[in-house]
């Protein structure tokens, strides 16, 4: 049908569109119901009548779309939390930092909550970044508009929607999540699935799937990873080589051990009681700047990145020492301590990690999780992601000793800790943190007011539900000293209290 739904007036409409200079508009004939055939109708009158006819026209709605509604079994967040979430993560960036958004997303994931559907468009940036932690609806929203199948089919929430027969049809993020989940349960089966689909995937997807395999690496993975040495994409080759060195007994690992031993000198120290000391010879480019404060971190990062993965026992055997003696011998060699801390964390040798933290370096937890820019960060993060709550508690008990801290770590380090844990600190460590002298430095007058806000935000994310009230009290003390940027941290505390209430 024409746009006027009326063939007679359609002729008039066409004439107006084409112009009436040569061919006058058939006004009377086109509007028989409105004007008498005997009355001469001007073009302008005909135009007015046609315009009114168009204004009264009503279209029939198209048939209902075939797209099925997205079913999301999660509960919607409490109403009181909605304005807080919009304020903290609304628009494209929201008010708060990434760690606040991450804390809210993780809490939603843990408590099986989802944002209110009406808020999802207003939380566009947040949903795009954390859609897969926010339930099926948000995940589908974050994938909307991309070419492909119905996004409702592509959501991997608790592995309910996929199995090994159809996982390859999902989107990359969902596939990586599926493989990571299976890796925790059946590591060999996960590797076999990735190997079977590898030839059909694009390079970015292959890199993503390899990252999902990083948790729980074992010698059984060596063959597959070695086969990737000839992959057509350099990113995949580099990623595979990176993972290979975390497999004990592998040729790459053996080479690293030889290199480590060659770089390490063993000497004795002490006057009354002679003891063995180990010292790592640094590369020339790091030696020249080793006096600068920032380069000390670079040295620790270099050692951990280069040699982590070869195994504590393998290193101890190479040095001809028991592991505990090896750690003690490295007491004055911070790069080696950083390496041992990282390795102990990866191997879940939490007794070794605790010894390093308690006896040698209270900030070794940063080496364990990987400092900013570490190549091994992803591997470390994935390892933690594969851990259950009990393992995380053990790790925190070994690595986090706030009582030994002289001052609060920088915001970036606390945020990295949250990203590593993806949950608040265990109750014991959080309590120790709140009571520590380091926490008291938060109210130090020398601390920049603008720096306090992000620090409080990170602390809010790391605080478990039972301690949020005391933390709020501590923040209230800061508010009394008139530190304005605290609002996001207080709002995050309020929001998390609603999403994740104190268990009764």
């Amino acid at each position, binding site marked *: 049908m024409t746009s006027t739904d009326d063939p007679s007036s359609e002729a008039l409409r066409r004439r*107006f569109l084409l*112009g*009436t200079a040569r061919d006058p508009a058939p006004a009377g004939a086109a509007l028989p119901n409105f004007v008498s055939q005997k009355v001469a109708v001007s073009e302008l009158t005909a135009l007015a009548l046609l315009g009114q006819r168009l204004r009264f026209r009503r*279209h029939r709605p198209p048939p209902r*779309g075939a797209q099925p509604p997205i079913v999301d079994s999660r509960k919607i967040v409490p109403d009181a939390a909605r304005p807080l979430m919009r304020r903290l993560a609304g628009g494209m960036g929201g008010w708060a930092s990434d760690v606040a958004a991450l804390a809210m997303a993780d809490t939603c994931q843990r408590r099986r909550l989802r944002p209110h559907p*009406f808020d999802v*468009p207003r939380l566009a940036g947040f949903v795009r970044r954390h859609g897969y932690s926010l339930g099926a609806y948000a995940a589908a929203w974050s994938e909307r508009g991309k070419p492909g199948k119905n996004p409702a089919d592509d959501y991997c929430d608790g592995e309910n929607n996929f199995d090994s027969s159809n996982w390859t049809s999902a989107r990359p993020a969902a596939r990586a999540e599926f493989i990571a989940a299976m890796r925790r349960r059946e590591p060999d089966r996960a590797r076999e699935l990735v190997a079977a689909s590898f030839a059909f995937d694009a390079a970015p997807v292959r890199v993503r799937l390899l990252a999902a395999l990083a948790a729980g690496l074992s010698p059984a993975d060596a063959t597959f990873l070695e086969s990737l040495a000839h992959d057509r994409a350099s990113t995949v080759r580099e990623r595979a080589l990176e993972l290979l060195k975390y497999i004990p007994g592998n040729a790459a690992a053996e080479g690293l051990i030889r290199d480590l031993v060659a770089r390490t000198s063993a000497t004795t120290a002490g006057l009354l009681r002679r003891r063995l000391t180990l010292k790592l010879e640094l590369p020339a480019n790091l030696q020249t700047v080793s006096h600068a404060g920032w380069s000390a971190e670079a040295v620790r990062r270099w050692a951990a990145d280069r040699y982590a993965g070869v195994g504590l026992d393998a290193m101890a055997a190479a040095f001809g020492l028991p592991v505990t003696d090896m750690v003690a011998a490295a007491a004055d060699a911070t790069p080696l301590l950083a390496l041992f801390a990282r390795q102990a964390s990866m191997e879940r040798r939490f007794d070794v990690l605790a010894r390093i933290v308690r006896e040698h370096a209270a900030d070794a937890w940063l080496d364990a999780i990987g400092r900013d820019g570490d190549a091994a960060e992803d591997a470390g993060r994935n390892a933690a992601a594969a851990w259950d709550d009990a393992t995380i508690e053990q790790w925190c008990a070994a690595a986090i000793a706030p009582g030994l801290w002289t001052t609060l770590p920088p915001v970036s380090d606390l945020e990295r800790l949250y990203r590593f844990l993806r949950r608040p600190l265990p109750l014991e460590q959080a309590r120790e943190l709140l009571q520590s002298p380091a926490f008291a430095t938060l109210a130090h007058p020398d601390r920049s007011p603008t720096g306090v806000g992000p620090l409080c935000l990170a602390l809010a994310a790391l605080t478990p539900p039972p301690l949020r009230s005391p933390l709020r009290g501590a923040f209230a003390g800061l508010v009394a000293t008139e530190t304005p940027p605290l609002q996001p941290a207080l709002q995050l505390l309020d929001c998390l209290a609603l999403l994740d209430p104190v268990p009764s």
Partner: protein
Amino acid sequence: MPVDLAKIEQLAPDQTSLAAAAKLKRSDSWPLLACDGAGLIWGECQGSGASPYRVICSEADFGYKCTCPSRKFPCKHTLALLWIRADGALPFRTESVPAWVGDWLARRRPPAAAPNKAAPDTAAKVSAAQAAAAAPSLEDAKAAARGAAQHERNKADREASIRAGLNELDLWIADTLRSGLAAFAPSASQQCRKIAQRLIDAKASALAAQVDRLPADLLSAAESMRSDLLIERLATLHLIACAYRNQDRLPNALKADVRQLVGWAVTRDALLADSAALRVTDSWMVVDTVAEVQPDKLRRYETWLSRRGDGAAPRFAVLIDFFPVSLGKTANAHSVGEVFEAELVYFHSPAPLRAVMAVQNGPTVPGGRWPRPADDVPAAIARLSDVLALRPWADAVPFAAHGARIVAADAALWLTDTSGTIGLPVRAHDDDLALPLIGLEDIDAFGGWDGKFLSLGLCETSLGRWIGA
């Protein structure tokens, strides 16, 4: 209405203002913080200058005034004052209204001024103003007669000028038809600007604004809809011109309406003084807020109200305010869902819609659920036609229906009845706000129908309230 952080956030022109206001919450920035105990707060904020800025704010309707030179409205001082009030961190002394606050109150419009008591000296000033207004009665009778005659001559001159302008408008439309509307779009801007300038010269400024808006509306419409839109707009312009020429044969309400459409503005004071104007006192709920920048560099704020009481009076009203764009971004004083008691005075129209608030009785408070509309979707669509029949040039008609649903088809959204047999296309929001409504049943929907699309403003659903603004 109690001040809360959400309201302050809504009022704030941007995030920077909020951050700046947060820094002013210290007690040493405010040598004076006071209130009158009846919803008026004021304070003095020490800025970088020698004398502090004076800030006043009404908690009843969030009217405000600050003496700072900021181009943001409200400024950080106003936001800080409200924030301090909301937090309750600093005490407000209860005292009588000082002269500078009373002065502001006296100059305010009645809605907020009514519930507050002005200071005695203010009352004296008002009395003086009234006395001054009464002064013309003492003028020389001859001078008054001369003035009235001059006024009549001016009016007649303008009438003649407008009629000449309307003739030129018709001539331009006829020429456009002869050239063919298909060729109009590429040169729409120049053509419309030219005839709009002519209409301004002819003192038909409101009609000129309609012509000026045409190119932008054409470009924003889908290409397949442009020709019909152009026909409708040109037809409406001609219709208005014809109606104006024949205004003496029209009913009073229609005549007043068409005169306003052409450019005979009715001031707020004139409307309030018009005893024949329709006045409705009731409880009103804000159901939509619209802000848009006009080609004449004015920002236009529309506040759509739904009457909550019974009776035959119009169920909807729209308050329209204009601010210069140069003032920067300002927030609408009302937000969707708020409720207040007020007397509204409607502009004369066969389908009364636009109104001004004569007086607000009591504070603005958050309202409950929007009352379920009486009409279902087919009845509400039929009501649109009724309004169009009464006022053929209507460009925004309120639509309210229960039992609606939103369906998606071919990347477009439609509001339909439950059976899907009748419906209206929904205007797409840039940020896809309406998408979550898809699949929900039995929606109570309010929106504005512009002849092509329904702009949803508020929906009551099984998941709660959806707000489009």
